[in-house]
Every structure is written in structure tokens, then in C-alpha cells.
């Protein structure tokens, strides 16, 4: 609770929370209601400017209402962000534990594996997966989750090693606690603040990566409204109708910025060295 309160006292924290809440709200609302059917084509009302005929942000070449598409697209964004973060968290924690609390030769091998995987670009991994299994939101989410999970693993490994060297872990061992118990009761709770920060930053990266993959045609199918898909669709008409590209672009930028700032604010709120003494 103190962390939430600390977030509300920082402009970056407020901005990040508002963006996250806005994203959640947009997804929930779009699920039940959008001003127009986001996938319905309407050739009679193509190329409309903002506010024409009740189309808040105008329409594109096929008469898709842009505001409805943005709202509906937020679902893909939120879904990717959350699922990719969860996968990254699980992959990251498991790899970090495998690198630290196991016998030394296993640990050393896992550390090498992490280093190799980190050198591998996430987008490339996603494209390879898409080439093998076909492009879809699922492929993109899995690839993004695993790709960024390795980064989480590297950070978590350092944190676990630091906690493992503390006297209270030694004391717990001297009490007869098993490795599993030490992981559950001492290691994970004590690295949680760092992990939460890392995962909120992973959400920002996941949003960006999903938009990029969909734009390139390796992610969400063009039939499902998504911000990356809108960008891909409208970029051909950039010169004639720049606004159509600006809306989804702005949505991606604001979301990524918001989640990044939320991560930064969380870091400051959870780091006792940066927290004001109260």
C-alpha cells in the first residue's frame, strides 16, 4: 500500500497508472460497446475526417471507424502485455533459480545459456517462430515472453545471488530449512520488488514488440483490430491521410511511455535507498 501511495506522489507514477488504467478501461469498454462495429466496412463513408457523421477519429479507405478500431485494438495490446509479462516472469524466475540454487555445473551451463539467448534479438525469435508455426497473437506472445524472460532471468539471477549471500539465508540453512523452503520464504519475497519493476518494464517492451510484429505481418492477423495492424494498413496512405497513421502510432507511444514511467516510478517507490524517510 505504501508503494501505491508513493506512486501517487510522483508525476511519472500518476501518468503511468493513468495510462495503465486507461488501457484496461478501453479494453473492457470495447468488449461490450464500441461506437461502430470496428470490423464492419462501409464504402459510403470511406475517408471521412474526424467528427464527420459521428466518426470521432474519421474512417479509412474501407470505412472502418478509427476510434472503434483503436478501442478494440487495445484488447490485443493489453492481452499481449499481460500474457507476455507472465511468461517472461515464469521463464525469468525458473532460469534464474536454475542458474543459482542448483549444483554448480548446472548453474554455470544455465548462465551460459542465458548469455547466448540474450544475444538473440526478440523480433528475430518471433519471426522464426512465426515462420514455423504461422503468425498469430499466440506466437507473438510466446516469443516476446521467452525473449524478454531471458532479460528478467539475468536481473533476477543477480538479485538471488545477493540475497543468497545474506546472513538470514545462512541462518535459515543452519535451522535446517531445505532449498525449496529457502526459495519460497526468503529468496522470492526478497527479490519481489526488483522483479515487479522489471516486469512492468517488460510490459512496455512487449507492447512495442507486439505492434512491431503485427506491423510486419508476423503477429495478430489483419482481421483482428490491433494498433500494429492499423499502422500497417494505413501507412500506404501516409501522404494523403497522415492522421490515420498518427492515431494508432500515438496510442502505442503513449502506452509504452506510460508503462516505462510506471516501471521507473515503481523502482523509485520500492528502492529504500531512493525512498524518502517518513
Amino acid at each position, binding site marked *: 500500500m505504501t508503494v501505491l501511495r508513493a506512486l501517487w506522489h510522483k508525476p511519472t507514477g500518476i501518468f503511468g497508472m493513468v495510462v495503465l488504467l486507461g488501457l484496461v478501461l478501453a479494453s473492457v469498454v470495447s468488449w461490450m460497446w464500441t461506437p461502430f462495429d470496428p470490423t464492419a466496412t462501409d464504402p459510403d463513408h470511406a475517408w471521412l475526417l474526424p467528427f464527420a457523421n459521428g466518426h470521432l477519429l474519421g474512417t479509412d479507405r474501407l470505412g472502418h471507424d478509427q476510434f472503434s478500431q483503436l478501442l478494440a485494438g487495445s484488447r490485443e495490446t493489453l492481452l499481449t502485455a499481460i500474457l507476455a509479462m507472465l511468461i517472461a516472469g515464469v521463464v525469468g524466475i525458473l532460469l534464474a533459480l536454475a542458474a543459482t540454487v542448483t549444483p*554448480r555445473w548446472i548453474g554455470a551451463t544455465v548462465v551460459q545459456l542465458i548469455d547466448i539467448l540474450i544475444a538473440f534479438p526478440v523480433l528475430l525469435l518471433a519471426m522464426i517462430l512465426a515462420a514455423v508455426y504461422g503468425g498469430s497473437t499466440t506466437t507473438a506472445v510466446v516469443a516476446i515472453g521467452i525473449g524478454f524472460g531471458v532479460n528478467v532471468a539475468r536481473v533476477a539471477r543477480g538479485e538471488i545471488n545477493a540475497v543468497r549471500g*545474506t*546472513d*538470514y539465508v*545462512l*541462518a*535459515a*540453512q*543452519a*535451522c*535446517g*530449512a*531445505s*532449498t525449496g*523452503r529457502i526459495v519460497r*520464504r*526468503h529468496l522470492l*519475497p*526478497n527479490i519481489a520488488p526488483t522483479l515487479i519493476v522489471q516486469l512492468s518494464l517488460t510490459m512496455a517492451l512487449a507492447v512495442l514488440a507486439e505492434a512491431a510484429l503485427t506491423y510486419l505481418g508476423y503477429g495478430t492477423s489483419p482481421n483482428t483490430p490491433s494498433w500494429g495492424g492499423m499502422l500497417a494498413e494505413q501507412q500506404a496512405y501516409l501522404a494523403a491521410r497522415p492522421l490515420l497513421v498518427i492515431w494508432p502510432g500515438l496510442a502505442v507511444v503513449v502506452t509504452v511511455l506510460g508503462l516505462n514511467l510506471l516501471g521507473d516510478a515503481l523502482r523509485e517507490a520500492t528502492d529504500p535507498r531512493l525512498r524518502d524517510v517518513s
Partner: protein
Amino acid sequence: MTLLEITDLTVRIGGKTVVDGVSFALEAGERLGMIGESGSGKSLTALAAIGLLPEEATVTGSVRLHGRELLGLPDRALAKIRGEQLAMVFQEPMTALNPLMRIGKQLAEPLRLHRGLSRGAARARAIELADKVGLPDPDRIVRGFPHQLSGGQRQRVGIAIALACEPAVLIADEPTTALDVTVQAEILALLRDLVDEQGASLLFITHDLAVLSSVVSGLVVLADGKLVERTDIAALAHGRHDPHTAELLRAARAAAFPTPGDPDAGS
């Protein structure tokens, strides 16, 4: 009866021999001091006895508890012995408790591990333990977190955790070094009384001769990883000892009673 028997214990870390052929025995009910300057291998001897040396250390020799060899025992078997028959109190009370766990939970941990106590029974026992080690307002303190306690109070918690399962042997690794002098005396008295009451044996590690005489009877002296002398407090008082022990004694006296002309005088 010999409880803990350490024979020819040798510890090597990174090609360097840090404990070199140390042998001594701890009798049932005995309070034995282990003294030596920093880096003489005291703490590593203790960690080797309880099987918690860093992974890169190689250890040879023998550590027997109740005649049972502990060196080379699998971790699972060692975990059953640690906290139950062989427990340890650490030097730094400020870092020896998990900052995120309530005091009561940490007190109850060894009981939950070794005695299989239910949550409720363990909580009740935690309050008793807190009371036994002289923590004020135990009902309230078990619900608190380590940062709400002073150093002396935290060391009391550490002692309560170590003695929760009434182990046969307690190893105390400089338990008072990090505390101020008045608190030191209280903790030493508490440690002595509780060890007596439970009939446990105590291996008390320190580099401070002044605190020893009030706690222990026997004494082993370590220097450069080797055991130089096994003696007792009475013999020390009569001036029969090894040159290394004499050196430690002289330093202790110099620190306690600084004289203007003495170049080794502490301030």
C-alpha cells in the same frame, strides 16, 4: 561423553589452506571457547562443523556428532540435524533475520521444520520463546518485523531460534561482537543461562578474551588455521600458555588497560 568430535579438519578455498588439521572435542554440557585473531579460521571451522561452507571450499577430516560422521552427509540428511541437534547463532544480528518475515514466523521456523508443529501451536510456542529470551511484550513483538527491534533484541531472537528445538550443541559465532558493551553482558548471561538450563554444549567463538571468562571453562586457541593450544581459563590465569595465547592475552590487556608508554595500547 564426547558430543562433537572434530578430527584433523582441513578446509581449502581457492588453493589456500584456511583451516589446517584442527582437532578437538566438545564434551556433553561443556562450554568451550574458541579464540583467535581475525582470519585464524574460527568461523570456517564452525561453518565446516555445521556443513555450511561456501560451495568452492573443499574439506577433509572428520566431524562427528554423537559418533555420527557429518562430513560428506547429503544435504537432506544434514538439514534434519541442523537446528535440531546442532544449531548456530550468528555474528550480525542486524542481517541474520529476514527483513520481510514477522518475528513470530522466524521464531517458529525450526519448530515447524523439525517438530511438525501446526501453525497455531508454533505461534503459541513462538510467544513462549520470545518471553524466555527476555523480549519485552512478546505478544506484540512476534507480530512485528526485524527493523522494529534493536540489535540486542534481534540477537535475542537469534538465540531463541537457535535454541528452539533444544539442540545438543550450540555454536555461537561472535554473537556479541556487533553489540555495545552493556548489551553484550546481558546477551552473554542469557546465552550461558539458557545453555545451562537446556543442558546443551556450547562452542563459543570470539576474538575478544574479555567476554570469554564469563561464559566458558575450556578454551582452544587458533592461529593461521592451526590449533595452537587447548587450555582452560584457570590455566590462563596462572600464566601457563603457548606464546600465541600469550600474545592474544597481552593485546587484550593492552586494550583494556592502556598505559601511556605501551606502543600497543588501544585507545
